[in-house]
């Protein structure tokens, strides 16, 4: 068996005196999308922060392509090829779009930065039009794209995304998820936390359901959508709505449908 791209084992972490994660495990592979879903406060964001060295792990380990990187500093992880797009505050607001991407490209050898930047602007034509605009003046959806491009320009092997679709219009959500598929096709491993659980699980290769800082369920994403326990507990509504939503978008995946 080859070593997985990301291997998180029994990770425990929290804030000051509150332990939030009580031993969470997950693995992710190249060219795969992993979706992490779960109720508000389950510890999804904390999990990504603990993997990324923004919250100090108390126990457990994080391995990137076989190398132990538990608790390593974020800038070092970025240099090792792990990218992260936070849930909020994910762009430099006073910098222009091009400057945001340039900052992201600094981990690359100098000679390769410009070419990589151009490639990103091709991948995100929307940003190319606005390359001289300050990121703070963009809409929420456009900022998400800037943040995504900022992380991608560093040519990561693995991308951690916290709620890539949160706060976006249905159209913008489509755009972001479409980009995720393109990113996967580039050979990058994607680990994302999503409120929009139905859509996230539908397009993911592997899904994890987190509850109260512990693994609750896991399996192939679409299979989780059909798992009655998952549906009952975390998706709300019946199996029928769950499976029919795999192709169409459903608003606010974590809430039970209003009657």
């Amino acid at each position, binding site marked *: 068996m080859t070593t997985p791209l990301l291997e998180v084992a029994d990770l425990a972490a929290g804030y000051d005196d509150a332990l939030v994660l009580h031993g969470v495990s997950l693995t992710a592979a190249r060219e795969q999308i992993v979706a992490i879903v779960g109720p508000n406060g389950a510890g999804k964001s904390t999990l990504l922060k603990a993997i990324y060295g923004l919250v100090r792990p108390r126990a457990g380990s994080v391995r990137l392509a076989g190398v132990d990187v538990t608790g390593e500093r*974020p*800038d070092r992880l*970025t240099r090792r090829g792990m990218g992260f797009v*936070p849930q909020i*505050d*994910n762009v430099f607001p006073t*910098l222009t779009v091009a400057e945001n991407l340039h900052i*992201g490209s600094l981990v690359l050898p100098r000679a390769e930065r410009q070419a990589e930047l151009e490639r990103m602007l091709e991948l995100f034509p929307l940003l190319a039009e606005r390359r001289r605009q300050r990121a703070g003046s963009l809409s929420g959806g456009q900022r998400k794209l800037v943040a995504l491009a900022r992380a991608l320009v560093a040519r990561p092997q693995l991308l951690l995304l916290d709620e890539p679709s949160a706060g976006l219009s249905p159209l913008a959500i489509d755009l972001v998820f479409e980009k995720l598929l393109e990113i996967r096709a580039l050979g990058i491993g994607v680990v994302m936390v999503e409120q929009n659980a139905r859509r996230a699980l539908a397009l993911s290769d592997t899904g994890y359901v987190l509850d109260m800082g512990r693994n609750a369920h896991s399996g192939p994403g679409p299979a989780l959508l059909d798992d009655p326990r998952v549906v009952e507990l975390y998706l709300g509504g019946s199996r029928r709505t769950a499976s029919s939503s795999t192709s169409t978008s459903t608003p606010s995946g974590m809430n039970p449908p209003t009657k």
Partner: protein
Amino acid sequence: MFSQLVVNGLVTGSVYAIAAVGVSLVYGILRLVNFAYGDMMAFGALVAYGCNGPLHQSMVVAALAGMAATALLALALDVALWKPLRARRAGFMSLFLASIGLALVLRQALLLAAGPQPEAYRVDPYRVFVIGSVRLSEAQTIAVATAAAAIVVVALFLARTTAGRVLRAMADDRTLAAVAGIDVARATRLAWAISGLLAGLAGVLAGLVEYSFTPDFGFQLLLPVFAAVVLGGIGSAYGALAGGLALGLAEELSTWSGFAGGVDPVYKPVVAFVLLALALLLRPQGLFGRARVA
């Protein structure tokens, strides 16, 4: 008369501007209101005096030595004081109080080392340049020319260079900067070094403009410099430049007789603060600051 005041205002304002950028850079990145900045300026001015007076170096060499020494002081203080405080997650107020303490220590140390007597650089106070109706002393000329050059260099550095961009990114969001792969500790040292260089330069220029200065003159400079920082929008380097120039001009122009007979020059600092209060009423985030949500 009016144009003379404008020129005087630009001279004072450009010194404020340089110091204000130095304060603003560090505030933007560390959220540290450095109350010791005035005394760091005095330190630079005194080191330059040591080179220029007793050691008979040219003013240029002396100024460079003052700047370099102040940058080293800033870096040393980061290692000895600020870094340990950051590691203990000291809050805004603790950092502010620590900087007040540092200011007192620095000021007394400078007084002990240099003595309380006024010092003056070896420039000819009687050499005067006349341009039309405007008269500029040699010291004023040096100050305004150097300050203008420094302002252009700093503005270009921030706007065009990678290092300048990294500093602006850090000022926007320190955590995100680390996430984006920036070595935050290294960039912080860079910010201190630049802030120190600017403190040294501003100190030397202030010493030149005031002709003679005592080792504790930094404190009087601190208030207008802080006013300039706030006026420009705290944390915004470009704003600090504009705030400094605006403040210097306002101080001088307030004494113009065409302006309600002119304010007694003694009240220049009062004018500065009235202006600051008015500006903040109209635009609380400062001239160039961002309005903050929540």
